């Protein structure tokens, strides 16, 4: 799960509207809100087109590049993407349903079927300043799953592992897609028809797992 920088606000009209609301936001209703696509596409821009938690590709960059915003509004009518708007902390959904800081765009099944309204631990909030995947996480390149960094103390590891589970990062189908994606890349490199630099440039998803695999395999090669 990459760190997400949400400071680049392309949908400034939505942000003004969000800030203009008092303590209690107007009721959250995704299908009925004029700022829904402004939020979604701005998030996809910040998230580089992938699910905030699993890093599965959700949208082509042709749809979220900054040229599609005019006067703080996203311009394409009903753009195609496969994802859902997730309230990271579901307890805020009722009173702060439109809070930018609490939004991520995620793979639909992660939102609808897996994470749902379970309580979260902010230790793995991908836009938090303190979140650094390379300090908190490890990637097992054989099992193709993320775990907490085993250098951290046990209680912290447990909190992180609980959140990895809650965010669906290691769900079996996610793991299978990630494993197949990375194996293809690694096989290309090992067969001499690709290199890490070019593959990184072309890679559209699973950035963190890619980077961790690369680090590990290149270290092994140099040993």
């Amino acid at each position: 799960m990459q760190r997400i920088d949400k400071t680049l606000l392309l949908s400034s009209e939505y942000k003004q509207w969000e800030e203009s609301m008092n303590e209690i936001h107007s009721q959250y209703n995704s299908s009925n809100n004029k700022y829904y696509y402004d939020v979604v596409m701005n998030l996809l821009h910040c998230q580089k087109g992938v699910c905030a938690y699993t890093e599965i590709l959700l949208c082509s960059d042709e749809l979220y590049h900054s040229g599609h915003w005019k006067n703080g509004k996203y311009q394409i009518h009903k753009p195609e993407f496969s994802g859902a708007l997730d309230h990271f902390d579901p307890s805020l959904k009722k009173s702060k349903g439109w809070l930018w800081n609490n939004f991520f765009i995620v793979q639909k099944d992660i939102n609808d079927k897996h994470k749902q309204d379970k309580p979260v631990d902010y230790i793995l909030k991908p836009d938090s300043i303190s979140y650094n995947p390379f300090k908190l996480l490890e990637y097992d390149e054989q099992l193709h799953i993320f775990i907490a960094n085993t250098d951290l103390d046990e209680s912290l590891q447990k909190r992180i592992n609980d959140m990895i589970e809650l965010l669906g990062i290691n769900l079996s189908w996610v793991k299978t897609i990630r494993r197949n994606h990375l194996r293809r890349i690694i096989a290309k490199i090992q067969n001499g028809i690709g290199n890490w630099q070019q593959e990184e440039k072309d890679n559209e998803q699973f950035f963190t797992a890619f980077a961790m695999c690369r680090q590990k395999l290149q270290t092994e090669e140099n040993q």
Partner: protein
Amino acid sequence: MKVKSLFIKDYNQFKDFELDLTYPAGHPKAGQPLDKVCIIGQSGTGKTTLLDKLHVVQRTLRFTDPNTKSNQVNNNSLNSTMNPNDSDLGFIKYINSDTNTQATFFDNGYFVCENAESFSKLSPHFMSMFIDANTGSKDIGKNLQYWKDIIKDIVAFREQEIQRKLEIAELITTNQDRLQEELEKFNEWQKNMPNPLKDLAENYLDKILYRFNLRVRQSLDFKKTEDIETIKIETIDGKEVPNNLLSTGTKQVILTTLPLYALKPQKKIILFDEPERSLYPDIQAIIVDFYINLTTNCQFFFATHSPLIASCFEPWEIVELKFNPDGSVYRELYYDVEKGNHVDNYTIDPRYLRWDSILTRLFDLDKDSNEARTRKLMELATLRSKLQKANGKLSFEEKQKLQTQFEKLAELLDWEYDAEN
């Protein structure tokens, strides 16, 4: 006759639904009707409905040719000539592979043949046979469909056998001189007379019953007259198993095989709903071949939920039904549509997949295991990571302890070292 294609104009969830049931380009049988078809899909997608559509029975048939008007055909209410390519009606297209004759059966009950071939002569070949594996509480006996056909030859054979044995028994007391001669005649008779029970046992049921440690009792064994009008099952070591004590799976196999024994179908269309019912996975994996080998040049349609059954089919033989957002259904194609229906363009082949891959790739199961496994895999990865970082940090004993934990968990997870998991 074999079904070549099917079109349903508008029936329940089927709207303008078309199925091409021929082998794709690049296949040795390209263009010919499929020998077997496996229909899969979520409950409600219409697997059984498709079987029902294909279940053409004698009483529904009205034959005509493209130039015949209704008043010439049995005074039926056909107002115009039937066009075999008419898509205002649903239809099934057939081909007779021997003569290459084509025919179309419409939803309104008309069969249209492309030439003047005798329709009545063709009619038995359009008839399909429906076998339902939901044998429930049925028993092996006279209430079964085809029972008369099944038992007729067996009873006739047994009656003759009993008669001859009685005659020999009488000679023991009356005419010892002829006894040896009659015994030889009896042995000769046994050798030359086709024994239907032996046929049923050795060529049909025992081929599968041995997997349950059972077989058909071939020895003449009766205490009452009804005994000769039934089929008895015994254990491999000869102990009779009464019909009411046979397991559901055993009964299912017997009751679905008996119609094939009775009719000895040739060039027929055989429809089979849920062949996996009550069967253990090892039997499911072989049951398709078992049934097919009991018939001659038939076309089979199986509707199933079993990945093991599906693994017996070539990818073009799988009809996977899926829901459209509007609730109608479509067939999921396993080839790249832009490149065309050619064997080289198929991206899924159930014969080459592991069972779990069939579940995820064909049956769209979004998990490859229970999610409890994921947490255990995380534990395994944690142990692996600790072991990799252990040098210089942990004592030999501590490392050994971690290694033991790792191996124990790896075994529990059936995790193969350096292999796909």
